[in-house]
């Protein structure tokens, strides 16, 4: 029996704010501009739709929180999925190589990185108990792997418990929420949840993940300063991170 070729596509999610919908439409169009054969799944809050969402190949509706992305990740229709934050824009044909990079690697997931050198663009990265290194904004994952499916489900469930339901936070020896090592201000960040899962949960020690080569090209924050973030080529995906005080401050999300 022949091995079946995995399905491949991009996943975009837009919820709550109309701007996210506009950004997402722009992103989808920009993917198709540079990679016309690309398959796109779009998770969107139904009340944001004005018809333009029909450019996506698969549409599913999500709720109205800021983190519907985490639900979207569990609903991808593709085996190999490249998730992109809605406020990104594809600017280079190399975007078509993203699935080849995953297949050529030994990894279940390829992330972009949060690094010390790029810290001037992040709202938060280090805390007494560790430092965020994986960027959950743009990444490609193999959803055929059970451990990856589990990670996406746990990421969603744990974040909901951490932030919306307020029923989980790491505990200290006295059995209280450990805000010394893990500041309360990190509760809002789903990237903290990702950090916790891959660093502290035994099950995910088996997870194979890596940083995509020349990763800044795949998540080029518009405020990156070129001389401080060297790359081997022009940006493939520019990230315009929503919610920034545009010209003076850092981004409104982690990365």
């Amino acid at each position, binding site marked *: 029996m022949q091995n079946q070729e995995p399905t491949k596509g991009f996943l975009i999610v837009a919820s709550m704010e109309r701007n996210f919908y*506009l950004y997402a439409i722009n992103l989808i169009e920009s993917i198709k501009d540079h990679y016309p054969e690309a398959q796109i799944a779009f998770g969107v809050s139904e009340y944001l739709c004005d018809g333009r969402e029909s450019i996506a190949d698969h549409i599913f509706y999500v709720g109205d929180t800021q983190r519907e992305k985490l639900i979207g990740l569990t609903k991808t229709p593709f085996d190999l999925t490249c998730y992109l934050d809605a406020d990104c824009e594809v600017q280079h044909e190399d975007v078509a190589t993203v699935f080849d990079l995953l297949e050529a690697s030994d990894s279940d997931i390829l992330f972009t990185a949060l690094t010390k050198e790029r810290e001037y663009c992040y709202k938060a990265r280090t805390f007494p108990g560790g430092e965020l290194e994986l960027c959950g904004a743009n990444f490609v994952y193999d959803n055929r792997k059970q451990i990856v499916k589990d990670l996406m489900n746990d990421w969603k469930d744990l974040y909901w418990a951490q932030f919306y339901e307020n029923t989980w936070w790491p505990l200290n020896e006295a059995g209280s929420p450990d805000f010394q090592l893990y500041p309360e201000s990190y509760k809002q960040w789903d990237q903290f949840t990702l950090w916790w899962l891959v660093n502290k949960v035994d099950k995910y020690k088996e997870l194979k993940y890596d940083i995509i080569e020349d990763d800044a090209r795949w998540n080029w924050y518009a405020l990156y*300063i070129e001389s401080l973030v060297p790359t081997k080529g022009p940006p493939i995906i520019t990230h315009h991170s929503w919610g920034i005080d545009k010209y003076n401050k850092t981004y409104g999300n982690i990365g």
Partner: protein
Amino acid sequence: MTEASRVWMDNAYWENYQQDKVKCILMIVDENGVTTNQQLTLTKTAVDGSENTDWLELMDQVGADKITANTTERAELKQDQRKKEEQEKNEKERAQALHRLFEAKIQAFEIDTIKNSTNRVLKSKLRKAQNLIEVNVYSMMIIMEDINNAESGTD
């Protein structure tokens, strides 16, 4: 305060090209072992033309060659720093322009005529516009096409 020792730090540099004015730090340790650093600007001679003993002591301890080398090194460092600051300023401005460009494109695609245009080529060019002028030009072309189509009764 009684001075137990006076040491001129070896990082002194010339303040002028004539090399008769120098910026330096004098480290004084008093009889109780307390150290005080004084940042000084010394001139070769006093106002009345007499010899400056501090100057002579500095030249004896650190030497003119070392001060010249420090001055050259400092000038290079300052120049590098200025270049780096200038580069970062330019790149930051470029990043800001990129963000403004992105917002302008999003706004353009909110214009009904552009939103509803079926001309993928022009819409793609608008998305790939590299500056605000291109955004305006491609927006205008899409709108003009719509007007022309309406006048000729085609779509």
